[in-house]
């Protein structure tokens, strides 16, 4: 029992601390990119306590439930959304010494559990009884269902090369520095098709975690927040938390699949479980940084463009890539 609680608490702590840092970081990055400073006042040094102040503010907010909303679904949706992204952390190997659950179908479990996110978004959109929310929820459902296909296809490419669905095994086989004599044995350096796979995977996870340029479900300027329109206070904060957790989850998955997970880039130097955790989070947070960087660079796509990119470009490309990777594996 105690072991279960500890195993449950570790990813939760990581998510919560990460969310506080990432929300502050996102605002700082936005500020710096726009030649501003971002939050500077709360807490002294560069406004580091801004997220805590925001959290305190959100706790004090009124919890509004619209009269015509479906009460149970409305209240339940944000928690289900967070639960879905939190549950997926169970199979992420944070370091060589720690993984929540050592199951053999880790990748499959992760993809299955994150699909619940779509359901909770539709739940929130439908239960709000508001046209903006419904439109946002529908857009989100269409987007997530579509982009799950290229994500799965690229993950399958990696699984094909690695030969395992267990993320710990996938990470372990990326240890060492033998590629071309000096590069780490990370899967992205293993064959050229995996680079293409990573690009497709990255574009898809941008769409999966509702980041710009694919943030159509919430699109502030068009749908006034999409499925979040009717939410306030802590329920809204749960949505934001789930979104940031999802972002971290998919970035960490990307780091595990393509960038060697907790393996140090210098072979045995700076290895070990603690350094492993450091390297893993560093890789994940770098991907998160690139996502934020893209957010403050690119404008939002239209819905038809979004669908065009997914169905006409990414899905054919990812399947061709899968076949070519299989051929590469047979030949070499």
């Amino acid at each position, binding site marked *: 029992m105690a072991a279960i609680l500890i195993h449950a608490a570790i990813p939760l702590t990581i998510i919560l601390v990460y969310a506080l840092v990432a929300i502050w970081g996102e605002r700082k990055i936005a*500020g*710096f990119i726009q030649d501003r400073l971002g939050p500077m006042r709360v807490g002294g040094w560069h406004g580091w306590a801004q997220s805590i102040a925001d959290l305190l503010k959100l706790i004090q907010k009124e919890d509004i439930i619209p009269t015509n909303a479906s009460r149970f679904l409305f209240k339940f949706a944000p928690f289900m959304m967070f639960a879905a992204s939190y549950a997926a952390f169970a199979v992420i190997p944070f370091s060589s010494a720690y993984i929540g659950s050592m199951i053999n179908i880790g990748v499959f479990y992760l993809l299955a559990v994150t699909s619940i996110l779509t359901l909770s978004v539709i739940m929130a959109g439908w239960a709000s009884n508001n046209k903006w929310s419904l439109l946002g929820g529908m857009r989100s459902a269409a987007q997530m269902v579509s982009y799950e296909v290229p994500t799965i296809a690229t993950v399958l490419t990696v699984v094909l090369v690695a030969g395992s669905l267990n993320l710990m095994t996938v990470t372990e086989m990326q240890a060492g520095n033998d590629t071309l004599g000096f590069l780490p044995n990370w899967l992205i350096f293993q064959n050229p098709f995996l680079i293409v796979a990573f690009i497709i995977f990255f574009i898809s996870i941008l769409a999966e975690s509702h980041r710009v340029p694919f943030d159509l479900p919430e699109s502030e300027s068009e749908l006034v927040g999409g499925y979040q329109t009717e939410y306030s206070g802590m329920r809204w904060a749960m949505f934001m938390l789930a979104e940031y957790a999802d972002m971290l989850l998919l970035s960490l998955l990307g780091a595990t699949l393509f960038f060697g997970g907790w393996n140090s880039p210098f072979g045995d130097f700076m290895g070990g479980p603690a350094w492993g955790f450091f390297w893993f989070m560093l890789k994940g947070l770098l991907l998160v940084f690139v996502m934020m*960087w*893209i957010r403050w*660079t*690119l404008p939002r796509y239209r819905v038809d463009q979004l669908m065009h990119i997914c169905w006409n470009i990414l899905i054919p490309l990812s399947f061709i890539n899968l076949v070519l990777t299989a051929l590469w594996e047979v030949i070499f």
Partner: protein
Amino acid sequence: MLNAVKQSWLTFKSIFTGMGVTIRHFFGPSVTLRYPEERMELPKGARARLFVNIDDCIGCNLCARACPVNCIDIETVAATKDVDLGKTSTGNPKRFWLTRFDIDMAKCMYCDLCVHPCPTNCIYMVPEYEYSEYDRSNLVYHFSNLEPEMVAEVKEKAEQEAEQKKREREEMMRKKAEEKAKKELEEKKKADEEATKNEKENGGE
């Protein structure tokens, strides 16, 4: 197919160009001025708030007349003979008590037209821009340095002097009138005398 590859290449190229621009700005300097702690230095000749060096003012009213929105309100009282108000720093003699010199900065439109006519350069703009108020009446700046009792005293004195001058003038007028009347009378007398003389002379013939 070739076109699709070309399009994709252009797309990626534009995305990376954009990301290059944003990362340059990310590491570049920020333009934010953290206002209460840091302040921008105002350019030379900035028009922020009117100020009157009341010691140099001669009460000529030129600024009030130049003001297009009538935001300058001046009341002057002529100095009595027994006081010498001295000279301004530019050497002009001061002849008026400035019992009121109010500028309503709520009305002012910062046109600078009042500054140029001033013969002693005593009204000018100062680089002081933090003077917001909760009540509009607080934006009226009083530059006169006379105490209310002083104002009353000065006014009374001036009135008395004016009264006296009026009386003196009336006296003078009366004297003049009297003199004139006397003169006329004398002339009349003279004329009469001459007339009688002539009559006598004529009658004696």
